[in-house]
């Protein structure tokens, strides 16, 4: 939108030529100037410049919709508003499941089940709408090389034995999961930029990036000068691209993050405790294998503050008493804090207190 050329904003031809002599060719350049500068550059009077500003703004501004229109649109197509996770209590609390059109983050210490969750969601997205899926393809961007196709088939076969009763159906499902291995930040960003065309051509209904944190933390050492700003820049750019894709195509985007322990000379940094879910960490982190007694450090989701603002929903996975783990809804515009216990079985994640997902 910003890079829209002034020609397409329906400005008169001679004006565009005159402006291009001052290197003002896009709407962005035009709107960033002050009124006096615009008068100098266009040679027009104050009132005319204001009219031109309105015209250029009209070319850039978003369309208005009322909240009612949005609601009607959503209710016309209710199944497309969420992707059910088949974890029944979690779906209830989230008003349906992982929301379409926004970013959902799964964060946890290593080994809790992030990748398992992602693989489970990939299977679910390929299911037909009648079974609660989105009947579409999945783009899976894997930065840790943790995706295992065998596990994918195992989960599918065990969770929906009645549906995946033939090899044919399994192959069909695996064909619609597109896996990309990206190992640097740059390539991840390039891949995200190229996704717009892929989504249209392959009818993609779910984007998974596993994991954002590993590739970012490899390349940006926040102890070094200037890296913090660059990292925030990269994350913000990635987040806005993904948000654009999520909203434009009304699809869910799932990202995974890591947990970090910020040790700080014995002083816990109160700044990092941005939500009570982080406090829960402090009290329950002793369950994590290999962490021993809690020392002078506090545990938070990695990637910093800016990233926490960018994601709309945050789910935290944690160890409880092995093999039970817990899943917390830490940030969600529709759900309060809730905790559920689960275990990892052959069929993927299974919530405790619910029977094994009934065969269809």
């Amino acid at each position, binding site marked *: 939108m910003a890079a829209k050329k002034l020609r397409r904003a329906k400005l008169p031809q001679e004006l565009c030529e005159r402006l291009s002599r001052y290197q003002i060719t896009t709407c962005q350049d035009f709107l960033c100037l002050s009124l006096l500068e615009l008068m100098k550059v266009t040679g027009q*009077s104050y009132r005319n410049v204001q009219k031109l500003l309105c015209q250029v*703004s009209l070319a850039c501004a978003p369309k*208005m919709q*009322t*909240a009612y229109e949005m*609601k009607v649109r959503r209710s016309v197509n209710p199944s497309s508003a969420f992707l059910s996770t088949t974890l029944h209590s979690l779906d209830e609390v989230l008003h349906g499941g992982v929301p379409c059109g926004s970013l959902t983050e799964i964060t946890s210490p290593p080994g809790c089940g992030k990748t398992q969750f992602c693989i489970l969601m990939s299977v679910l997205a390929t299911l037909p709408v009648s079974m609660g899926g989105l009947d579409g393809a999945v783009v899976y961007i894997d930065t840790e090389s943790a995706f295992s196709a065998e596990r994918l088939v195992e989960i599918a076969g065990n969770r929906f034995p009645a549906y995946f009763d033939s090899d044919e159906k399994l192959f069909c499902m695996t064909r619609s999961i597109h896996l990309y291995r990206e190992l640097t930040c740059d390539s991840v960003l390039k891949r995200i930029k190229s996704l717009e065309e892929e989504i249209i051509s392959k009818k993609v209904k779910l984007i998974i990036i596993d994991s954002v944190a590993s590739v970012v933390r490899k390349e940006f050492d926040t102890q070094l000068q200037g890296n913090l700003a660059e990292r925030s820049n990269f994350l913000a750019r990635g987040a806005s691209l993904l948000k654009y894709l999520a909203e434009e195509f009304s699809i869910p985007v799932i990202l995974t993050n890591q947990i970090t322990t910020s040790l700080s000379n014995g002083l816990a940094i109160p700044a990092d405790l941005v939500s009570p879910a982080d406090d829960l960490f402090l009290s329950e982190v002793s369950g994590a294998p290999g962490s021993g007694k809690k020392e002078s450090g506090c545990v938070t989701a990695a990637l910093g503050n800016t990233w926490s603002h960018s994601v709309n929903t945050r789910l935290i996975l944690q160890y409880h008493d092995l093999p039970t783990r817990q899943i917390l809804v830490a940030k969600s515009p529709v759900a309060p804090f809730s905790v559920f216990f689960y275990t990892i079985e052959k069929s993927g994640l299974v919530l405790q207190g619910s029977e094994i997902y009934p065969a269809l």
Partner: protein
Amino acid sequence: MQRAVGSLPLGPALRARLAAAGFQTAQELLDTGPCGLSREIGISKEEALEALQVVRQECSGDAAKTAGGAGTTRKCTALELLEEEQAQGFIITFCSALDNILGGGVQLTKITEVCGAPGVGKTQLCMQLAVDVQIPECFGGVCGEAVFIDTEGSFMVDRAADIAAACVQHCRLIAEAHQEEDHQKALETFSLESILSHIYYFRCRDYIELLAQVYLLPDFLSEHSKVRLVVIDGIAFPFRHDFEDLSLRTRLLNGLAQQLIIIANDHKSAVVLTNQMTTRIGQSQSTLVPALGESWGHAATVRLIFHWDKSQRLATLYKSPSQKESTIPYTITPHGFRDVQPPAVTQNTESTEMNPRKRPRREEEK
């Protein structure tokens, strides 16, 4: 009429020619007439006529100002302002503690900024206010409409519908308790559909769209004159990445603030902005401060900071021209933004030192 030619809002080339030809005051221009002007400066008759029309408009505006006419001037006595302010409505937030520390609610014609960590409830408050601004006057509201400019994509229609339904229910209970006729009539038009249809939603994906939308906002508000609330959810998000030139950012933000102040005053509406928190690394510790820098702090008239204390959400009034700094607890329920139910907390009004540079006020009573 003695206005200097150089100060007239004409194009710079035209002004240069006028100066070269020796014109000094606006009166001279008007006396010369379009034909004479076009001959002397060497422009076409149409251009000369246009220039004279601009001059005439400017001068009549000036004359009105010097004669003390109403409309373009903003001159009035403090008494008139006092009467205006007292008659003005507030937009209630349904959290009586928050309304109290704000002096009644979110004030019209002022810019209120809400800062907070992610997930603390800023968007919830914005959605609550977008619903509350529509409450009819007989129930204590301002009966207006709302513009919601969303830059982060965090507006959830279903959640807004829940909040609206709870508000309608609340008003219905009041109407039943009071049994007055105008309450019943107001309830007929105050329904879920009407509330949602009067929330005008704009989704701005980057700062250019935001700037463009704010330029177009005055025209929009003139068409929809019942709008009493403009919410910009996430003023920080589009400005926090892809900006190498920080001075450009400051300039754009200041321009934005100015335009919002004009909009708030001209259209008698409240402007509510939400801001993010950022970590400032100090020598020995790092603190959370509102994003967008120090100079942005001057833009808002009233500043609220939402934060956590263990698992309790707190709101601190950080900057206000008329109310004292204080902190109150609040909670988010399925019905929206609400008070914490008593008897839990005694008001914690001592300073949670958010700004070590401000002298904390001492409590005289209590």
